[in-house]
């Protein structure tokens, strides 16, 4: 249910009325700053602040947010363990060498690099979550149109988005029907059932496609897919905090990199 859950949160977000442009500026801006930052402090700061914004004014349930963050955290944690041993340079911090031909070492440089990567991932993930959890897909289409993405592409995306939920529901129904008749009991059966599910889904999407053309014809289709305008124009009271936040973050980054303040 995760796909629909994300969509639900965005649809019911308290930030729903804010112009999507403002939210995307904040999300992509902090993403960019996190990516270019050579120190882990800036992404960490950005991640914490944006998480706070998501949890308090945007009222995302902490439990759901935790669950969402869990997947990337686990993934990154495993990658970091590998990176710690792979990267090199600097003094050796820890060495593991039970036999002569196994030599696992963690160096100072590797620790620094891994730390940076960990926090970058955190900062970037939260930035993207900010967009995902506050801006419904339907508002993003509007922005894409403004960005001069070809309308044919956007129309297709809109139809895809519309049908994700229909096919998702259909797949769930087929799956349930299979489970009820013990379709996934053994490995061999599971493979068989799953291939049947895919086949059924393909056929039903084919039929849905034909029906779609007919439904569009019924309503005088002439190549136009109407767009939804933004909920409200860009407002200063939401844009200004975003600009202040981003320039603050950028400022901190500048100060740290130019070495006016030395971070230990």
């Amino acid at each position, binding site marked *: 249910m995760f796909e629909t859950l994300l969509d639900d949160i965005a649809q019911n977000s308290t930030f729903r009325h804010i112009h999507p442009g403002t939210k995307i500026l904040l999300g992509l801006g902090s993403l960019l700053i996190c990516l270019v930052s050579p120190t882990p402090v800036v992404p960490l700061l950005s991640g914490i602040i944006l998480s706070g914004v998501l949890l308090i004014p945007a009222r995302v349930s902490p439990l759901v947010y935790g669950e969402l963050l869990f997947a990337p955290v686990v993934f990154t944690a495993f990658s970091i363990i590998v990176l710690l041993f792979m990267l090199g340079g600097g003094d050796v911090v820890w060495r593991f060498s039970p036999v002569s031909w196994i030599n696992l070492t963690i160096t100072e440089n590797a620790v620094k690099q891994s730390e940076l990567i960990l926090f970058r991932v955190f900062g970037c993930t939260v930035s993207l979550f900010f967009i995902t959890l506050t801006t*419904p897909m339907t508002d993003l289409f509007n922005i894409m149109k403004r960005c001069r993405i070809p309308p044919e592409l956007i129309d297709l995306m809109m139809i895809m988005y*519309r049908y994700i939920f229909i096919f998702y529901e259909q797949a769930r129904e087929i799956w349930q029907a299979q489970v009820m008749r013990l379709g996934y009991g053994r490995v061999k059966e599971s493979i068989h059932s799953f291939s049947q599910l895919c086949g059924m889904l393909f056929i039903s999407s084919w039929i849905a496609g034909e029906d779609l053309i007919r439904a569009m*014809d019924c309503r*005088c289709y*002439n190549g136009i*897919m*109407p767009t939804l305008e933004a909920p409200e124009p860009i407002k200063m009271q939401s844009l200004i905090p975003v600009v202040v936040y981003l320039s603050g973050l950028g400022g901190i980054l500048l100060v740290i990199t130019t070495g006016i303040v030395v971070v230990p």
Partner: protein
Amino acid sequence: MKIILEARDVRYRYPGNQEAVKGISFHIKPCEKIALVGPNGAGKSTLLQMFNGMIRPTSGTILFDNEPVRYDRDALRQLRRRVGFVLQNSDRQIIAPTVYQDVAFGPANLGYDEPAIHNAVALALRQVGLEGFERRPPHHLSGGEKKRVAIAGVLAMDPDVLVFDEPTSGLDPSGSEDLMELLDELNHEGKTIIISTHDVELAYPWADRAILLLDGKILEEDVPDVAFGNLDHVRMAHLSVPTLLELSTELSKRGFALPDRKPRSVLDMVHIIESHLHGSCSHPAPGTITVCNVDEGETSSLPVWVNARPGIIVGAMGTRAKQCAAKEQLAPEFTYGVIDKCILRALRGQDSLILTTSGMAGRVVTRVDAYCKESGNTIRVLPFRSSGQHTSAEKENDKV
């Protein structure tokens, strides 16, 4: 006689199959309510799809507005603008990712400019009672709401004829009743409405004319009490006789002298039974029916007005009236067949209040008058006035 849609000996054969429609001819007048009734595979859907040119008959002609339908692109677009088609499965009809975009689909493709699209969408959503749903994605809506979005999408093109394939399938009983009420409302705004259905109980009181289809042919085409009254045909078409009709047949077989006109509603039936038991049941003085038009005048005094009259029954007729009732936190007892039910209550001596919309306000008076004339009862219909005014009006009435 004006005719809006006509079929002349139309036939249709699906590729490689046997004929689905085997020579059907009929005509439909403007503002009629037609129910196409028949078992599965009778050719109902096929026939319906001919009305807006989705299916081209193999032989025979369909005439719209006395002109044979032409099947070139532009002519078809014109036809489809004027004959709106609502599919059985709303999920298959709703194309766009938000309600606004979906309802705007027709007008945008017809080349309306931005403000005109906006107006058309606002009006259509108002007609189906979904104002404020513009930004909602369809997968967040209930079955009934999806159906309404599908209807709004068609209404936005302002068609003359609305064709519904199984409009109540998949809706719960109250959802079906709401939908039939909406169809009545649209019919009252001047739209011709054609539905296909299996639901005899729903079609019987609703339709002006019923067409029974079986095996690609018309079995019977008449007013509902005649069409559904032919037991052989009803059995052949795998349908059931409406309860009211069955009851009246049983009664007449038991020697009750019944009027020629068959009962169409519970009210008719009650009237028939009571006229037989004349004298043996006592009647209190009939109650009054107050009509409040929610489109005109202020409605904020409604709760006070209702609270001042304990025991009053509230009925809401039409989408906006129901919304108004919800807004004023009134719980209407009736939302379907409101006038008849209020007359029934009035006969038992209870007062009622009907919330209604401009388009349907006149209907209350017409219906009550017609009933009074037929039955010889007198039921007073009063216009709604906010508290202070009304008491004085009532006093005047008392004096009279």
